[in-house]
């Protein structure tokens, strides 16, 4: 796999609080990289910095080994924030159709996503009236319609039950044919099931990065779940 994206030494502070310290890692084409960390670890801030939605103090981002301005990162990276309600007063169907047109996606692709995410019955409902799970599915559909090759999803499994989570994982795997995924997850069980590699983030610092086997070695464990590895390292 070739390197698609690289973050080099990204640092960010809010007032006196250092929220990201020298974050460096690479994302390879066609993989699913999970940013794992407890609440407040800096996962969302890191994603927003990498997509130019927040300015960072130091460091740089690279796309295929060429440094790019964070404000131009939107050409290659799509970031789907957590907890947003796009056009909350409009019907879900209208919002999806709007983003499909804006992203230049095919209508058949939209219909496929509506079917796969079981959104058909919700299309006439206003976005704000959707349950947490359906809001998450709507956002996921918007994210998967986006044309950028690197998709960053913030907490994509939040609000899903086990069956739905497995369905979404399958859908995400299908999208790997054309996209690379960077997922921010705090549920370690789900992360272990879907991600190829993991970036362990704690208090704004990279604690470790690698596949589960590599992390197990780093933690000095002979086997063990991601949860055990995470606790051992962090």
């Amino acid at each position: 796999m070739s390197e698609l994206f690289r973050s080099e030494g990204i640092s960010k502070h809010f007032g006196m609080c250092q929220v990201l310290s020298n974050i460096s890692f690479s994302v390879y084409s066609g993989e699913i990289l999970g940013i794992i960390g407890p609440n407040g670890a800096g996962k969302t801030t890191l994603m927003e910095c990498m997509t130019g939605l927040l300015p960072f103090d130091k460091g740089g981002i690279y796309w295929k080994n060429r440094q790019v301005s964070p404000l131009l990162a939107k050409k290659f990276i799509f970031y789907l924030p957590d907890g947003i309600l796009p056009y909350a007063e409009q019907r879900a169907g209208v919002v999806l159709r709007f983003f499909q047109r804006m992203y230049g996606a095919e209508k058949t692709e939209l219909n496929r996503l509506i079917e796969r995410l079981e959104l058909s019955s919700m299309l006439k409902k206003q976005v704000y009236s959707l349950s947490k799970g359906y809001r998450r599915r709507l956002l996921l559909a918007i994210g998967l319609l986006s044309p950028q090759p690197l998709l960053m999803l913030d907490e994509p499994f939040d609000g899903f039950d086990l069956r739905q989570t497995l369905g979404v994982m399958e859908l995400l795997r299908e999208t790997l044919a054309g996209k690379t995924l960077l997922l921010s997850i705090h549920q370690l069980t789900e992360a272990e099931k879907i991600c190829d590699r993991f970036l362990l983030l704690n208090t704004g610092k990279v604690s470790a990065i690698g596949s589960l086997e590599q992390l197990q070695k780093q933690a000095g464990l002979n086997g063990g779940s991601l949860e055990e590895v995470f606790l051992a390292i962090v």
Partner: protein
Amino acid sequence: MGAALRRCFLQLSEFQLSRVLLMQEIRTLLISPALWIMLVILSLLVGYSFIQAVELFSQASQTALSYPELASGMNPTEGVFVPAFGAYYLVETLLLPFVAIRLFGQDKQNGTLKLLLQLPLSPFSLNVVKLLAMSVVWLFILLPGVSVFIIWQYLGGAVHFPELLTLMLGHTLFVLTIICIAMFATAISDTLPTAAMICLAATLGSWVLDFAAGEGGWMGALGAWSLTTLLRQFESGLLSSDSIASFLALSLLFFTAASVLLHPGRKLCQKTKPLFVAAVALLFVVFTIMQVPQYRDVTENRKHSFNPADVRALQQMNKPLKITIHLAPEDGRLYDLEREVLAKLRRTVPNLEVVFANTQSTGLFGASENDNYGLIEYEYADKHDMSYSNSSFEILPLLYALGGLKVTPDVIPSYTGHPLVADASNSKWWFYLLLPLMFLLSAYLFRQPQFLRRQ
């Protein structure tokens, strides 16, 4: 699949994306209850103002029909349209900011902005699209005003289109500025209530400043930039490059600031530089325009102009003309002098200096102890004269004598006025019932999924 999608994305031009986004923003506005509530209130206020204005105009017209010399005071723009559009001023100042802030601020509050900023559209383009969407609102807002025009014509009233169009231009520029202020307020606030407070502080503050516009000093200078003061020129039928430039410059300044500040990914230092450059450039443009002011009196009774022969003669007076006024700012005579003579002279005489002498009202009943009080002195080409008159009929001959000019006024048809005795009370059904019902029905229809499916 991803590569194909990416190709589509890149193929969509900024224009096509903006068009799709514009439709979405219009849809957002049309399902907004705030818009329709504002329109209902506007309809009621315009209707009330119009019916009252026609009633007063009719009462005055009855007297004018008996005494034709009074008819010249019966101007429908002043008597009917300006009062009816007074309701617009209220709505534009107090309610429109909420509709605008809702459109601009909601994206920020519910996170839509984070998705929009990832589109291949600049923050400027995003704001232009929203501004265009708001222009659709302006078309809706115009409906009660257009009704006033149609009903007035149906009642047999006269309309002088240049005056009416100037009035509407003034309100359009006023609304544009308010919308840009609202845009700026949402860009610098985190919540909608804060943005509303900032915007209302600007609009109401401007209204308060208008009271200071007539006074001297820095408050008076600041008051001259009040939006209300600027609008009043259009209401009075005076089209001036200064006012248009001021409205446009203020709008552009707030629009630029809002667009620069919109993107959270820029550092503060990256934001301040373009802001500073924009502010300096706009100040320079406005200053340049103000050096060569252009005026056009669009009133039917030419109330802002001297006789064309007088204008030609005054324009020939190239040497400095100094007028020293011994009147207190609050004196009613000064108001008449300013309106009837000084304002017209400022627009005509190339080199005019108006000086206010120190006049302190310390005498009995506030009267001045100064013997010169009330005197107006004129100096031109080393000649000096003075008068207590504030009428152009006395002042102009005095000036011509100083300039050694002889002026024979051109013969122009005198304004005979348009008195009309009419009853507009039946229009209450339209303004108080039908139009509000139409707005409420539209609000209902636009919120229906059937409507949205057709989009």
